């Protein structure tokens, strides 16, 4: 078993320090600039935003846009989004770990076919199955329910999740598992006590993917919900952005983007080192 190499970028020996900092500083600036611009624009007043030529720094910073978001009473919708996201992350991670373990470590009939079917669902565009999903959820009394959304999002997230977890389990040398079995552990004990800590980067990847899927999803949340208080954040933000006559309310658009991006950035920063390790885990047989 190899320990994952630290991902921190090290300066190559042939590159002088000054050049390194200049080049990578500029690159970093290039990537951060749009975000910085977004942040700056979100504290401009609507009159200043309309100004031509545009101002670089807000002349009179105002929280007008943020106040408008607060006034819209988003608390309930943020909570909906958080609950749906949490549910999806937990459900998708559990299902993916179990299924990935099964596909990687157990031999059974139709294993390959089943795995291909799971993967093939990645290729079906969601829009094409909306009507059928609606009928099914309606029959199960799961429209207008956060549980229904959790189910839909989990289904979106698990093909990729199972794929990732299968690769993660496959990368663990069989000897590790055999040692556990020799010591008297059953399959579930082996999974929980021995394998899970090793495949943790994979689980983090799946969780992160499920998080983004559920937090940002718009169309399913809109179609399967017909009560204002059940809307998730992306739907409410889409509503707040439209101004009169089909025009865009830029201020709210930017503020909404900033607000809804914050949890994504935070979670990504926390999990990013696992995320990258999980993505490449099992990519190459060693």
């Amino acid at each position, binding site marked *: 078993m190899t320990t994952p190499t630290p991902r921190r970028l090290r300066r190559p020996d042939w590159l002088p320090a000054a050049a390194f900092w200049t080049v990578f500083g500029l690159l970093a600036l290039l990537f951060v600039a749009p975000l910085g611009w977004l942040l700056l624009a979100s504290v401009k007043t609507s009159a200043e935003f*309309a100004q*031509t030529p545009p101002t670089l720094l807000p002349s009179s910073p105002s929280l007008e846009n943020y106040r408008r978001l607060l006034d819209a009473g988003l608390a309930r919708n943020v909570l909906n989004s958080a609950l749906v996201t949490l549910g999806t992350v937990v459900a998708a991670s559990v299902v993916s770990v179990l299924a990935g373990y099964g596909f990687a470590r157990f031999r059974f009939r139709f294993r390959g076919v089943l795995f291909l079917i799971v993967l093939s669902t990645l290729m079906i565009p969601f829009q094409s199955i*909306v009507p059928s999903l609606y009928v099914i959820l*309606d029959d199960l009394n799961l429209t207008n329910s956060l549980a229904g959304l959790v189910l839909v999002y989990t289904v979106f997230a698990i093909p990729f999740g199972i794929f990732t977890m299968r690769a993660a389990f496959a990368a663990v040398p069989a000897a590790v598992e055999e040692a556990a079995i020799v010591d008297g552990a059953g399959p579930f004990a082996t999974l929980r006590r021995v394998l899970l800590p090793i495949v943790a980067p994979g689980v983090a990847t799946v969780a992160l993917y499920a998080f983004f899927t559920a937090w940002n999803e718009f169309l399913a949340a809109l179609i399967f919900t017909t009560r204002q208080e059940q809307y998730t954040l992306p739907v409410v933000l889409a509503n707040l952005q439209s101004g009169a006559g089909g*025009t865009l309310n830029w201020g709210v658009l930017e503020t909404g983007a900033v607000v809804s991006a914050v949890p994504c950035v935070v979670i990504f920063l926390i999990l990013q080192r696992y995320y990258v390790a999980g993505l490449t885990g099992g990519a190459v047989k060693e």
Partner: protein
Amino acid sequence: MSTAPRLRRLVPVLAVLVTAVTVSACSNTPATDTGAPAALSGSGPATLWVRAADEPLDKALVAAWNTANPDRKITMLTVPDAQYVQKYVQAVRSGDTPDLAAVDIANVKSLTSQNLLTDITAQVNALPYKGELAPAGVDISTVDGKIYALPHQLDVSMLYYNKALFTKAGLDPAKPPTTLDELVNAARKITALGDGTYGFTMAGNCAGCNAYTLLPYIWASGGDIMNADGTKATLDSPAVAAALNAHKTMWDEKLMPPAAKDDNGATWLTGFQSGKVGMVALGSFGVSVYKADKNLDFGVTAIPGSQGTSAFLGGDVIGISKGAKNAQTAWDFIAWSMSADVQKTVVANTGQLTVRADAADNAATQAEPRLLVANKLIATAKVPVTAKYNSLFIDPTGPYLKFLRDWIFVGDTAKAISTGNDGFRSRLAS
């Protein structure tokens, strides 16, 4: 691992899966037809769907209704504009209909043509003020003499002009242009001020914006872009040429900012708001946006043509869904919302136009005369009569936008007409 034989075994399985998905996606049967208008039933609490852009007025209306009718409150749902029809059709098909639907006036034909609204002709005919309701809004909601919806929230397109720039350019701010020639001349004088000032602007790459604001120039020139029953394009009419040539002149002489050509509507409002543009045609919703800007001294007037003036009627109509469980409450809400009192207070106070001509003059419009100008345009404002409105005029890849871009920005009139005719013909036939 040998995947090839497995893959081959998998093909039938996949085929079955794909077929099942496709079939179930297409198997929605159209709503069944019903006969004569029945009395409305159901007086419980009702639900109302509105599109996001028009939420503020409905919020105020619903709040006022709920205070007055605590036993049959109305619950409102806001739906993003672009997904409204899709979501509505989905809901009606699966029986989860809202009682009331406030829908974009341009989309009402797509609901009536699928028979998704309730016939309210008998109720409408009993209204003492039927004749005062915005005529184009009622007409567009009428199919074979039966009325399915009524004007709910209205907006008209008009010409906005910057009074400060008019004065600076030696034009009389009390006399906005009334003909196409005056419009072009005013644009020349304002552009001549220099310093990045332009006489006129338009959202040159926005189909919907130009349906709303450019068609009135054509109507005001005594013609139309389609024949009376909306089955054939009349692109070679002199009225079309008059309106588009005026725009082409303004583009050729650089009286519009260069960005006008590619504006997809994103900066339609803000261009004029910057105070550097003399005139723009826009919906009356612009009044409440611009008046918040203290530095902007603007006036509004009817959109001019070579033979008079005209306006496009936009906004929402409201109807009762087919199969509404509380249709009586729904109708009572519609009738209540149109009463003179509600129109003059709740509606007028949100800065909206009234749906009744006899309510146009009220405290709010007296305080903001620009809204009174807009309100008075409603009586003569028009809506294009075609069931293919979205496909022809709103679709960014539709024939209308291509036609006017070819004419104004490319400048090849003959080619614009011939490709335009082909485009209209194929969309009308589909």
